[in-house]
């Protein structure tokens, strides 16, 4: 560790002078006047004015990574960790504040999105090239969007048709012959009305088993077609309307190298396969009533149908979702404002499961699952009061009440946020709030299906409930006119009152699901520093300590698959006018506890380094980029236990703690018409 830090520091010092001089030459050649404002590339930034701690990853930041989809868009963010759910499906899962992504509320343009059965799988349904920005807020969110944000919110903003390029085409190919195409078409009819049509397709053509030569594909064969059409209307009187409709079709199959989808349910060759269809629609409208008040409506609906098989086990899920939210905003005085509203959510999940992992296994099916059909109707009412004393002090207190028809529970959600800026650019924030979530036994833990564990659900699973609180400190130091050091430090604590606990430690052959009996909590401390050693060169250094524990069969243990610590080092350099851009990201992943399992990996995993880099050349209408993922070529040895006998009790493909893909080269081309 020390060596690495010293080397990095010496190199930075040694070359610090040189490019600065080189740039002076270029600047002189252009004879720029002294007052010229510099165009600055901003990949990530902390939103200083926001009351919540909010880290924004911009489209420029995403262009420095091969962001095929949302799951791959967090590689240069220290707040969000990304990992695989198992070794056969290729699905990625995120973690925020040491807890899986299901506890953070995913939102598309401030409307709840990818919840229920789509939550674990859904990251693959959002192509990175469609995104304009991703904002990650830590801690309990606002009450306006429901009670589900426990560890934070991740809000996605798609490209805006009135601002985006008229046409964009992105082509991507990697060394494992995974091909991708993204096309975006924006049209402005007039100053008021505009529309966008975005399409995305991906297919991989090569079956690869670089890893361990275990006869299993490293990544499944995947085909995805994804289309979005969005409309925006802005009237001269302030009326604003945004609507979007999205359809995704995805088919993937993996498993043993010789497996074909027709061999489904064959008990001599192991295969995984699945088809997902998802339709999503939302519309949001804002009406100004007068200078001081406005009314907003948000309506969204989605339908998802997922059909999958893992060896001889079957899983099928259908979900219908409808959500409506009406908000009324009003300025009460010079320093105060309020928001009040009502909401209604209807969600109907129909999960079908038949788990038969090996000969003689205990068959787990819908009959054992008491709530195979879960229909929730959740009407709610909320209010939020904001006191704002200039830029110095802001506080927001919110309260919401919901009734959940499935759990027959009255849910009261209080939230409080404070922001204090005693001296300019010194910001202290604090937040506390309660959150709830309806757990889905299989969808939240579908990696289990890629193992031979027998599934047992003990008792009726109640709604998950937690409290989250935290403090955050942000300071920007101005080094010179256009160079700053940005410092952020934060601490968050999450305490569960009830949680769906997946106990994998009682036996390597069994998985027990139950309500929490005892404590379950997460403590996360993180520090980020962004410095600019010289012009156009930015270095981000971040470190994080996780202490996440949960009670399994009356023993308080570290939560599995959560790194004890994590470090991140990001270098971004661009030449004047960004004609060339270089990005290098290094992640240091600490040890994580692995649950008791049949493989050779038990106890704590080894720490490892994961690096990725990209070079981008920008032209007038196009960009060309080449990059490498997993530069150090570190892969988990033998990720599939019992690969020789997949239909036996010794098979387990769910123990994944490190990358599954070796070093990967990619090449991409973007073409824009303004």
């Amino acid at each position, binding site marked *: 560790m020390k*060596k*690495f830090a010293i*080397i*990095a520091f010496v*190199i*930075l010092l040694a*070359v610090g002078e*040189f*490019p600065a001089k*080189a*740039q002076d*030459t*270029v600047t002189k*050649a*252009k*004879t*720029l*006047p002294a*007052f*010229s*404002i*510099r*165009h600055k590339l901003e990949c990530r930034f902390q939103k200083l004015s926001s009351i919540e701690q909010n880290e924004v990853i911009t489209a420029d930041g995403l262009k420095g990574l091969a962001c095929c989809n949302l799951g791959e868009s967090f590689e240069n963010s220290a707040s969000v960790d990304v990992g695989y759910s198992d070794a056969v499906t290729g699905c990625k899962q995120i973690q925020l504040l040491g807890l899986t992504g299901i506890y953070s509320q995913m939102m598309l343009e401030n409307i709840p999105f990818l919840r229920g059965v789509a939550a674990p799988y859904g990251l693959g349904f959002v192509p990175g090239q469609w995104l304009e920005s991703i904002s990650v807020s830590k801690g309990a969110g606002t009450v306006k969007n429901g009670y589900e944000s426990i560890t934070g919110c991740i809000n996605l903003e798609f490209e805006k048709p*009135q*601002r985006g390029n*008229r046409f964009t085409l992105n082509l991507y190919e990697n060394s494992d012959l995974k091909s991708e195409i993204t096309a975006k078409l924006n049209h*402005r009819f007039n*100053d008021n009305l505009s529309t966008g049509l975005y399409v995305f397709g991906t297919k991989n053509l090569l079956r690869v088993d670089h890893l361990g030569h275990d006869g299993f594909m490293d990544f499944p064969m995947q085909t995805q077609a994804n289309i979005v059409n969005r409309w925006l209307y802005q009237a001269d009187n302030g009326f604003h309307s945004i609507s979007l409709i999205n359809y995704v079709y995805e088919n993937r199959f993996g498993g043993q190298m010789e497996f074909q989808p027709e061999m489904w349910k064959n008990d001599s060759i192991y295969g995984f396969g699945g088809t997902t269809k998802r339709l999503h629609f939302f519309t949001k409208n804002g009406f100004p009533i007068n200078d001081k008040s406005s009314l907003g409506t948000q309506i969204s609906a989605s339908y998802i149908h997922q059909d999958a098989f893992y060896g001889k086990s079957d899983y099928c899920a259908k979900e219908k979702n409808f959500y409506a939210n009406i908000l009324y905003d009003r300025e009460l005085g010079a320093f105060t404002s309020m928001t009040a509203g009502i909401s209604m959510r209807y969600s109907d999940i129909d999960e079908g499961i038949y788990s038969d992992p090996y000969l003689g296994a205990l068959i787990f099916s819908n009959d054992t699952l008491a709530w195979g059909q879960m229909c929730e109707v959740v009407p709610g009412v909320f209010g939020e009061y904001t006191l704002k004393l200039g830029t110095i002090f802001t506080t927001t207190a919110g309260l919401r009440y919901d009734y959940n028809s499935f759990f027959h529970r009255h849910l009261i959600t209080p939230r409080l946020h404070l922001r204090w800026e005693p001296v300019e650019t010194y910001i202290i924030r604090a937040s506390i709030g309660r959150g709830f979530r309806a757990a889905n036994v299989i969808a939240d833990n579908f990696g289990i299906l890629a193992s031979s564990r027998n599934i047992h659900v003990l008792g009726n699973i109640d709604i998950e409930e937690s409290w989250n609180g935290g403090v955050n400190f942000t300071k920007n130091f101005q080094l010179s006119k256009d160079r700053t050091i940005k410092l952020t430090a934060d601490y968050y604590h999450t305490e569960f009152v009830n949680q769906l606990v997946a106990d994998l430690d009682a036996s390597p052959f069994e998985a027990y699901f139950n309500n929490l009996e005892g404590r379950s909590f997460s403590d996360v401390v993180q520090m980020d520093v962004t410095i600019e050693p010289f012009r156009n*060169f930015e270095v981000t250094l971040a470190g994080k300590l996780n202490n996440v524990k949960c009670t399994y069969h009356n023993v308080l243990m570290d939560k599995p698959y959560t790194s004890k610590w994590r470090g991140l080092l990001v*270098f971004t*350099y661009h*030449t*004047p*006018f960004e*004609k*060339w851009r*270089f990005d*290098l990201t*290094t992640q240091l992943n600490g040890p994580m506890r692995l649950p008791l399992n049949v493989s050779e990996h038990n106890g704590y995993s080894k720490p490892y*380094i994961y*690096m990725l*880099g990209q*070079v981008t050349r*920008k*032209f*007038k209408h196009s960009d060309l980029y080449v990059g490498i993922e997993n*530069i*150090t070529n570190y892969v988990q040895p033998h990720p599939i236990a019992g690969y020789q006998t997949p239909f036996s009790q010794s098979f387990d493909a769910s123990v994944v703690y490190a990358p599954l893909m070796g070093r990967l080269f990619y090449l991409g081309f973007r073409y824009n018409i*303004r």
Partner: protein
Amino acid sequence: MKKIAFFLFLTVILCSSVSAQKKKLPADAQTAKINLPGWCCNSLNPTIENTLAYERGVVSWTLDKEHKCVAVVYRSKKTTPDKIEKALSENGVLTEHYKANPRAVKDLPKCCQPSNRGENVQCGH
């Protein structure tokens, strides 16, 4: 460790060499003055510079805020003042002969939008 140090070193060297290119004035270099009536303040400079930096045949330029114009040194074999003016207008900058692309105007800093739409307003910055 060695690998990491090597990659770091390689990246920094690449960065340095790219920005160290020096330019000589070519034989066919000529200078043209392009009037920018919509130029209200320095916030517009990055847009003008970014456009000229990517324009084929442009060698260098000098911004003259007082006279609201830019003097561009260009290679006459590769481009014409008209093409340069058109490129600026496509990126949202109002020029003497071309209207600014309305989509690009929306991307300009707020204070620069009205004047580049052709309205007779100055932001006063």
